[in-house]
């Protein structure tokens, strides 16, 4: 197995982990927060919300313009 293949495998496992966390959160019916709850909590403070929006702007510039 090459390093490239191994890295893709790890990324796939991590993606599955995030998806499993989300599924478990939905199944817990409120006991654990979902991704949406995480976004709500992370942007509930104006300063944090500004930081998240700046991150969104950077992501768009990084991914599509540069």
């Amino acid at each position, binding site marked *: 197995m*090459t*390093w*490239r293949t191994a*890295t*893709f495998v*790890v*990324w796939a496992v*991590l993606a599955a*982990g*995030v998806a499993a*966390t989300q599924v*478990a*959160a939905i199944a817990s019916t*409120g*006991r*654990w*927060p979902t*991704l*949406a*709850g*995480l*976004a*709500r*909590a992370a*942007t*509930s403070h104006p300063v944090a*919300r500004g930081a*998240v*929006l700046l991150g*969104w*702007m950077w*992501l*768009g*510039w*990084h*991914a*599509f*313009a*540069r």
Partner: protein
Amino acid sequence: MTTRRLTPGAAAAALAITALSVAAAFTRPFTLAADVAVTLAYAGLAAALVAQRRAGPVPGVVARRSPVAGGPRRFGRRWLAWAASLGIVAAFELASYLQGPRAAHPTLSAMLDSLDATHAGRGAAFAAWALLGWYLVTR
């Protein structure tokens, strides 16, 4: 139980995001066209912020007719699973970034570049990014 309906503003935003994503699908990085597409998305986000401020606590993609249970926002043990999941992702992204060559250790950006290589992939990725911005601003 929450009843939801599509607002005119949300419909206009959906149309604008679709049109901009189609246009962005045909741009390439490091071009003026790509810069303009991203800047137009920024302008749309700013417009949504202003409109929301004028209208008060109005909804995002849908209008909420009853309060949505958000659950406690205090950080505590219930957030540990997300902290672990996203922390590991961030650590692996950093490790991949610091290791070389990029072809052997692809980062999230490198994988996104592969998606961006096709018009459809680039348009879809742009739409996902724009929708995320809309969600963050108007939820």
